[in-house]
Structures are given as structure tokens and as C-alpha cells.
């Protein structure tokens, strides 16, 4: 399987602290990969490195759009990375609270539209057409994610689970081929988690979008992911299918903090 995202020896130091140590990771086309590990293992740092928020201190990151050329993205600015087709959600929800649900998704369309200052002032045919398409597409995405009933609601007034879904909708609006989810199930009740699980599978199935997610909820991790990567203290300690990871003594040790054979 071709890889859409590949990191080689990705290393990140904050001063004297090594948050990531030579992490190799590959996400294949249409694959769902889960990144797990105890708190402070460097999962979110990994996300911040590949999306361009942090410039890694060592190693390579490359992104291969389907049908496009592979490009290195370490040191590329955040918005450029998004434009190339990798979108993310955040661990602590970062919606635009005072904008409506529809407007939130419309912001996601921003990088796929062109209208500039002149277009805005003159409001010519092309701009009007583009605006209409933005509204249209955004609405279509909301419809797919089951948020169509709340398009005119302010984002901050949505219930928690719906806010999480809206973040995914906003990320999808940027037309990614790789979606990064940072703890999408955090704070969700079991029913919402089930819905989320179905959603992730559907996103992969319908649109061939690869998914890389950080998650603590083992139930969802075990059931949706094709492959699981385990980080601990900034290092990759295990990689494999759900069944392999569940049995891996190193992983169990990392989570329980003691040697099981002792």
C-alpha cells in the first residue's frame, strides 16, 4: 500500500527535553491508524510537528497526495500543509465559538476559494458564484455529518458531541486526503462514541480519506483502526494490529507502569 504520510526519524527537542525520538510512521492510502500512548508520550507533539506548528529538530516528514508528487513538509507553514490536503481537529475543541455552524464550515472552504479584496468589493459574477458554492458545499458536508438541523446555531451553543462532529466537518471542508483527529472521542458518552466510530469508518469508506487519530478510548481504537502505533516517552515502542498490540508485553508495561513478569 502506498503511504500518504511518512515520517522518518522524526525528532523534536524542546530545549533539553526530547519530546519525540526518531519516530518512524507511515499512514497508507485509505488506512485508519491510531496513535496511542500514556499521557505525555508525545502524541500531540507528533501532530503539531507534522502539521507544521512545530518545526521538527530532526528527521523528515513527507506527504504524498494521491496522484500527486511526494513532498517534504517539515518546516512548511501550517496553512500550506492544510492546502496540500492534511486537515486536523484539536484535542481541546477549537471552533469559532461566535460564528454559526455553517460559517465554521465555510471557513474550512477558505483555502479552496480565491476571491480577493477586489472580488469582495465589486462582487462580480465569479465571486458570487464562488460564495454560493462555498455555502452549498459546506451545507452538503453538514448534511452528511448529521448537523444540518443546526446550521444556523452558534457553534458555542452546540452540545459537546456535536461540537466534536463540527470540528470534523470543518476539517473535511478543506478537502483533505488525510484527516488527523486528536482525541475525537474525549468526553463523549458511549452512544456518541458509537456514532463517531461509524462516522470515521464512513469517511474512510466513502471518500477514501486516510485517518490518523490519537485516542485514549481503547474500545474505539481497537474496533476501527487497521493499525495501531504506540508511543511512550517520545519513542515508538510497538506497532501492529489491534490483536497484536493487546498482547504486547511492552505496551502493557508502558500502560501499567510495571513489569508483568515480576
Amino acid at each position: 500500500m502506498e503511504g500518504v504520510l511518512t515520517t522518518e526519524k522524526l525528532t523534536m527537542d524542546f530545549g533539553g527535553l526530547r519530546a519525540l525520538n526518531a519516530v518512524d510512521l507511515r499512514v497508507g492510502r485509505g488506512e485508519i491508524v491510531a496513535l496511542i500512548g500514556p499521557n505525555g508520550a508525545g502524541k500531540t507533539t507528533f501532530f503539531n510537528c507534522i502539521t507544521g506548528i512545530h518545526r521538527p529538530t530532526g528527521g523528515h516528514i513527507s506527504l504524498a497526495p494521491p496522484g500527486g508528487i511526494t513532498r517534504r513538509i517539515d518546516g512548511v507553514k501550517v496553512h500550506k500543509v492544510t492546502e496540500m490536503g492534511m486537515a486536523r481537529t484539536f484535542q481541546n475543541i477549537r471552533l469559532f465559538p461566535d460564528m454559526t455552524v455553517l460559517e465554521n464550515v465555510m471557513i474550512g472552504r477558505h483555502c479552496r476559494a480565491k476571491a480577493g479584496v477586489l472580488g469582495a468589493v465589486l462582487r462580480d459574477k465569479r465571486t458570487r458564484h464562488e460564495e454560493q458554492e462555498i455555502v452549498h458545499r459546506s451545507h452538503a458536508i453538514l448534511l452528511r455529518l448529521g448537523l444540518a438541523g443546526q446550521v444556523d446555531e452558534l457553534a458555542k451553543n452546540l452540545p459537546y458531541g456535536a461540537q466534536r462532529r463540527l470540528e470534523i466537518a470543518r476539517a473535511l471542508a478543506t478537502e483533505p486526503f488525510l484527516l488527523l483527529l486528536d482525541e475525537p472521542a474525549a468526553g463523549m458518552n458511549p452512544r456518541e462514541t458509537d456514532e463517531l466510530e461509524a462516522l470515521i469508518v464512513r469517511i474512510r469508506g466513502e471518500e477514501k480519506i486516510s485517518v490518523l487519530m490519537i485516542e485514549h478510548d481503547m474500545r474505539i481504537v481497537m474496533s476501527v483502526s487497521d493499525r495501531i502505533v504506540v508511543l511512550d516517552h517520545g519513542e515508538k515502542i510497538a506497532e501492529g494490529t489491534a490483536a497484536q498490540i493487546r498482547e504486547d508485553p511492552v505496551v502493557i508495561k508502558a500502560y501499567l507502569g510495571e513489569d508483568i513478569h515480576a
Partner: protein
Amino acid sequence: MLLTFPIVVIRVNPIEKVIEWRWRNMALAGVGSFILSFVWRALLTWKERRGRVGACSVPDADTGVTHAASPAIAARPFEESRLYRPALGAAALFALVFPFIFSSYQTNIMTTALIYVMLGLGLNIVVGLAGLLNLGYVAFYAVGAYSYALLNHHFGLGFWTALPVGALLSALFAILLGFPVLRLRGDYLAIVTLGFGEIIRLILENWNDFSFGPSGISNIPRPGLFGIALSIHEATVYLYFLMIALCLFTIFVVKRLRDSRIGRAWIALREDEVACEAMGIDKTLTKLTAFVLGAIWAGMGGVIFAAKTTFINPASFTFMESAMILSIVVLGGMGSILGVILGAFLLILTPEYLRAFSAYRMLLFGTTMVLMMLFRPQGIVTNIRRVYRFAAKGKGDAPAQA
């Protein structure tokens, strides 16, 4: 009351070397603070009550149902209210006949207010929409004014050529300043722009060969009207209508910008920069656009100011001016076009018409600002931007223009 005691009650008469005790003032201060405390109490309860109304619209966490639409959407835009059209008509009529009813002194004041409307709307793009606190806005105003004055002095450039040139020069300065500075956030940006404003003023004050120093530049011609010679009164009226036209143009442009892809990006940028970047918005470019557009309006305002007063010197471009324009935006309501217009009229016209109280101007101004920030921090008119709605019947509407 006790705090006012040394100032209000005791007066030392140095000539006769006696102390005068003004007990009557003491009583007045007592009565005054007594009444004020009631007003204060009333305002507090009013604010509390309003806070409770707002709280009702918070979604019920248990059922996950949002009970009431949020206030921002539920509030009917003023533009939709039934009073809007008649009010607009009356305002237009008033604006049209104003210079023919009142003296040219009044017209002059009104023109000044209109310049501030334009400046306020320009700064509104930067502060209100994009959320960039710019305390050196007056620098761009100065650039506009001096570019007209100097270009006219040296090359005899007319008003109509100077208007776009002044705007462009301001834009150029904004780009030069913006590139390094817009990486900064919030307070830091405010301080750097403040510094920039002072630098421009100091340069104008001290570089005598270039700007003629504190003595300024005089004999700047008023705007021409196809070469027709105008009397001073006619020129005043002409400038007034010119300003009306320019204000309408500004309102039109600002409104369209606000309701566009770029306007949306500005608002989103104000709410969450990190999320914005992650959604593929070029942070630097978007901020720079707002900064430059704001500067363009300041530049045009400057050219008109120079043409109106026919004399400029650096004293017109102090930090006080920046603060004034910022107050207009904050008092009127950040992001709100109508609010900024009202704010400008209020802050510019009131001091003119209340000259009798001019000694207390700053006192009143300060009190007003403090009270505003405490009880109505969103300004006179809450910003009601266009809310994108989706028409249920298939067709995506480029929604009704607010």
C-alpha cells in the same frame, strides 16, 4: 466624600496666608455622591438583569437541546426593523439640506465629523473586524496629509491626483510596517504601532528640510471642481458633499468586505488564530490585508484633512488623535458600521456643541468611557454581521444582504 475633602473644601489663600474652609462644597459633594450611588446601583441591577436574559439561551446540557436561539442571531438586525427605511430617508434628507440651512461654520464641523466617520470605519476594519489593536493609526493619517501637502508644494499636484497617491503611500507604509510587526499579537502589536505613530510624528516635527518642521505647511489648495473658482463658503459646501460621497463609498466597501470570504477570515482570525491556520488561512496575508486596507482609508482621510484645513503641522497627528479614533470605534461598537458612525458624531460633535463645558471635556469623556466599558462593553450598537443561512429548499442562497 472624604477623598474630595482636601481639594474641594480646603483652599489656601497664599496672599492673605489664611485657609478658606468651603463647607458648602462639602455638602454638594455629599449630595452628589449620594445621587450617583443610586445611579450606580440602578445600572448594576440593570446589567445583572440583562446578563440573566442572556444566560437563558445556553443549551441544556442534559438533553442537548438548545432552548433559545443565541442572542446574536435572535436579535433582529436594525436594518430589518420597520423604522430603518424612514430613518435612513430622514438622515439622507437632513444630510442633503444641511449646508443650506446652517452656516458654513456648522458645515465645517460636520465635514470634520464626516472625516472621523471615514477614519473610524477604516480603523474598524483593523480593530473591529480583524481584531488587531492599532494604536498608531494616526501615522497613516499623517502620511496621507503630508503626501498631499508636500506633493502639492513641490510638484503642484492637485487634490484629485493626491487622493489616490496619498492612499497608496499609506498602504506602502502599512506593508513596510506590517510585515515584521504582524507576527506579534495583542498587546505587543499595540505597543509597536504606538511607537510607529510617534516615530512618524517626530520625523515630521524634526526633519525640517523635508516637512518644514513644527511650523507646518500652509496654503494647501482646497479640492477643485473642474477648475471653477469657488468662494470659501462654496468650497466648504463642496467639501461637505465630497465627504458625504466618500463616506457612502467607505460604508459600501466596508460592508462588502465584511460580508466576503476575506471578512469571514478576519472574524475567524479574531476568534482563534491557531484554528484558522489549521483551516488553511494564511494568517500573515489576511492580517496584512486588513492592516493595509485600514491604512488606505487613513491616507485618504489625511488628504482630505489637509485640503479642508489648508494648513497642516505635526501637532494634528498626536497620539491623542489615534486614541480618539480608537474611542470612536470602541464606543460605537467594534465591527458595527452604524455604531462607528454614531460614535464619530457623538465624540466629534458633542465637544463642538458643548463648548460651554469645554473645561470638563476630558472629565466627561473619561467618565463616559469608563461607564461604557463597565455596562455596555460591546459599544452603542452591537455588531450584527450578516449571518449566513441556508435556504432549506435546495438552492444555496447567497443570503439576504443585511
